[in-house]
């Protein structure tokens, strides 16, 4: 009955508005933003895996002059009594010197000289380096005995703190980008809405329900966002494959699959949000008959 070449596209309901150049532009922009967000989180993933890979066997070293053996003894006891310290190993000056000489091969250092100058070292193994006052406790204990703690190691052990701060930043950046994307989508939809103002007005005059008028635009926003999300996810693969070899040397195994659903739904939600913003302002204005 309907000629082949004609495809009745009635407005309203679940019919999508036509997809034009504005929509494609919005799709690309949103896709790039989502890709940036995806890359950011891939980076976070890599960072936390990398930190995790060496954080397990981190040790804190405490140094003390080896002259007074009673003080070193009680320091050792005090350190061992800190709750999150699992074990304290005493490294003698001889061992330290040997180790050092291995390290600085053929430095021409005199073993005895070295032994005399080196302090006694305690190597602390930690059960939970995330514990809040652990490092302050160790530092205080060490100070009371005139010993020193290796602050560089403390900083490394506390990298997870830094990492969680960075992840707040990542969330913040994602949120800002999400708002920007929602506004871009809402702006695109507003152009469509303006172009179709007559149609919308007419549908209302004919007694259309509000959902009937707005659904096509909300659907379009949702599809735009979700489509951009999937596209952005696909574009993450070149990144993953490109840096994969380099990452493997750092014992990092990037997993892009976990980002598929967040990007898909994130895009969808952002798109829907943009559409809701755009359609919220489509009030029924009554022009002349």
């Amino acid at each position, binding site marked *: 009955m309907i*000629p082949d070449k004609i495809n009745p*596209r*009635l*407005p309203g309901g679940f019919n999508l508005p036509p997809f034009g150049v504005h929509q494609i532009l919005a799709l690309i922009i949103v896709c790039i933003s989502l890709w940036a967000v995806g890359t950011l989180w891939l980076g976070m993933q890599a960072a936390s895996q990398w930190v995790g890979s060496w954080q397990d066997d981190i040790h804190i070293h405490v140094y003390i002059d080896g002259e007074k053996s009673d003080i070193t003894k009680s320091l050792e006891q005090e350190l061992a009594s800190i709750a999150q310290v699992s074990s304290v190993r005493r490294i003698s000056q001889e061992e330290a010197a040997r180790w050092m000489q291995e390290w600085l091969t053929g430095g021409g250092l005199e073993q005895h000289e070295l032994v005399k100058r080196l302090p006694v070292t305690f190597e602390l193994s930690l059960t939970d380096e995330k514990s809040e006052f652990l490092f302050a406790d160790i530092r205080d204990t060490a100070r009371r005995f005139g010993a020193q703690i290796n602050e560089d190691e403390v900083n490394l052990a506390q990298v997870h703190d830094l990492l969680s701060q960075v992840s707040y930043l990542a969330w913040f950046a994602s949120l800002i980008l999400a708002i920007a994307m929602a506004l871009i989508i809402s702006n695109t939809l507003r152009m469509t809405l303006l172009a179709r103002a*007559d149609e919308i007005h007419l549908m209302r*005059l004919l*007694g*259309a329900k509000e959902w009937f008028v707005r659904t096509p635009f909300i659907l379009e926003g949702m599809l735009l966002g979700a489509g951009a999300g999937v596209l952005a996810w696909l574009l993450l693969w070149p990144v993953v494959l490109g840096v994969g070899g380099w990452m493997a040397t750092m014992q990092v195994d990037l997993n892009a699959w976990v980002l598929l659903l967040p990007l898909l739904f994130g895009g969808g939600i952002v798109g829907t949000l943009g559409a809701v913003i755009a359609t919220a302002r489509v009030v029924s204005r009554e022009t002349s*008959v």
Partner: protein
Amino acid sequence: MLMYCLSAASVGIQSFCLHVVTFTGFEVTVFRMSSEQPLIHMQRLMLRYPTGKTALSGLTLDIEQGQFVYLVGESGAGKSSLLKMLYGGVRPSSGLLVTQQIDMRDASESRIRDIRRRTGIIFQDHKLLFSRCVFENVALPLRVQGWKTERLIPRVRKVLQYVGLEDRLWSYPEALSGGEQQRVAIARAMTANPAVILADEPTGNLDVETARSVLDYLMDLNKQGTTVIMATHDLHLLKSHPGRVVQLHAGSLAGDYSEY
């Protein structure tokens, strides 16, 4: 007490007269009207736009089901404003307006929607969608009411057949002449089989012959029971197509002739 009786009696006489007028003025269709309530009832109706302009005032008028009513009056008399109120485009500022048993002053949005679904509107600028073909334009009122596309086609075909445009189903409005566009607008107003058709100068920019044929369609619909209210400046149409004439002047009722 006596005063009360007197005034009650005079009200009775008034409404009696009104009925006589309508009975004589209109044929059998009036008898089909079961309820006492007219299709459209206005009492001291007043409309003031937000700009402060009073477009209509003190309008008391009843329109029975099945009537063919011409709204006449100078430009700015308030014809369009009255029609707009009848489909809920603007709300009355004061007074009473009851359309199809619904009080328009405090009707909810969904009541207004119901009214609009039972009202066919022909706009002066016919408001056809130029980016959509004739089929889509005419099908719109039914689509809005949730009809499926397959069901729409026979109905739209039939309606277009009625206005003699069934071969233009897939044309676009810009490929039609002004008169043909007006006929598409009529077709769209009648697709949903409305109880009332509101027409705002449907013959506005048509030549006499085309205007007559547009009127023929509206009269024919009216014969089938549709109430037609039409604003017009073309007084010459009244000779060939008689009907009730309601004359507005500067927003108030200036005359009501049951038969011109």
